């Protein structure tokens, strides 16, 4: 069992910030465990989702922002759908992931690299370009063997275009990203 000295380590500002960004009341969780029971990802999590909720109530910022689970949640909505107290748990995990990113954590580097590759592709082309984002991912991670076994299967099907399907005016999409970054700096 993990024992935490709350009087020394409870970060109340952190709890307030998560509640503000997620619009959820974290004290509503009474640890029934329904979220973890239905979560398909518990087998790869270092902290099961009901324990993330408990750590959040205890204001354990470092433990939460540095864990693998925040990166491995797929937002499948099982926890949110089945919470008897109507807590949007998946939304809370999303917010924890935003905070982890902002504070420079990348505990699951491959997952973060995939997300970054995807969004870079969208910023450049206005649409996700599958072949391009896979190459970006390989470039970031050095994982040259990623899905090479799938190439002979998918290439003859003519599904993967070697060139992006761009929008007419990709600058319009790039501007959304640009304004977003400006807002973040404010």
């Amino acid at each position, binding site marked *: 069992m993990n024992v935490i000295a709350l009087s020394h380590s409870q970060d109340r500002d952190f709890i307030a910030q998560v509640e503000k960004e997620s619009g959820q009341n974290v004290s509503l969780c009474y640890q029934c465990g329904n979220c973890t029971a239905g979560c398909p990802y518990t087998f790869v999590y270092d902290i099961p989702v009901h324990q993330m909720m408990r750590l959040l109530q205890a204001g354990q910022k470092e433990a939460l922002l540095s864990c693998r689970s925040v990166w*491995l949640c797929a937002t499948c909505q*099982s926890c949110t759908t089945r919470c008897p107290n109507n807590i949007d748990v998946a939304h809370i995990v999303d917010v924890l992931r935003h905070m982890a990113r902002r504070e420079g954590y990348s505990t699951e580097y*491959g997952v973060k690299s995939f997300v970054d590759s995807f969004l870079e592709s969208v910023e450049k082309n206005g649409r996700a370009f599958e072949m391009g984002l896979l190459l970006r991912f390989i470039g970031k991670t050095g994982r040259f063997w990623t899905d090479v076994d799938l190439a002979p299967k998918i290439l003859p099907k003519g599904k993967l275009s070697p060139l992006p399907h761009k929008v007419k005016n990709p600058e319009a999409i790039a501007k959304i990203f640009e304004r977003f970054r400006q807002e973040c700096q404010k």
Partner: protein
Amino acid sequence: MSQKLRYAYYPGCSGQGTSKEYEQSTRAVCEALGMELVDIPDWSCCGSSPAHTVDHRLSSALSGRNLALAERLEGVSAILTPCPSCLTNLKVSAHKMKDPEFAAEVNALLDFPVRNTLPVKSILQAIYEDVGPDALRPKAVRLLTGLKLAPYYGCIMNRPPHIMEFDDHENPIAMDQLMEAIGAEAVTFPLKVECCGASFGVARRDIVQKLSGKLLDTAASNGADAVVTACPLCQMNLDLRQDQINVANNTSHNMPVFYYTQLIGLALGMTPSQVGLEKLEVSPMALLESLPARAEAQAQAAKKPASKGAQS
């Protein structure tokens, strides 16, 4: 159906690539069912999962641009998309933008604001609610009798229910009923809304192998010949990655994974190439060719007890 069915259509990025056959069969089926799809002019990526894992304003802005473009179209009753991931993003952003403060933050990122005037629905919901299984049944010229399907909806088509507002969130039945309307059988499939491993295939393939493997195992053990799905990512994980799954889990599945629109198209009399069956990795052709014999056997089996009853 006295009113003309006319919708704004958001195809989604994967429809231009890995799910071309979904896009092709969706358009063909909608046309055959009298549903007019008006493409959202110069639509862009909704942001998919990556955007909402980075920031909700960014995600809603990427989706919002498309909502705003669709709102400029005339005479459309809703925005439709075949892809559950696009659907979730478009619906979540419309939902969150009901909050004026959040809407202002998102609109500040856009060239022109979202008015939030059109409902967003999946193609599945529109076919189910605006056409319906009863209207589909008489249009089927080729019943898929004998075909046993595991109906797989994926994790976000119906969840969370307060945002998706369609069908049941634990046991959805829309696709089951559409498949039954075209003669196929929907087998019991308890993992209808379980996650397939989503977009972790590239970064953490082990996750997809485990979760999608469980889906294929369960479909097979419930007697399904094939899986039918409504999601490009689910389809890709189950179909394109089926060999990877077999190697990792020491299984030998050879299970076709259809888009439900491909099967409706076939039933409406379209050819395999019109619905892009050749684009599937696990070929369904042997299975489909076995259907007439199976249907015959089923008909014979159904006759027997009746004739026995008549004799006695």
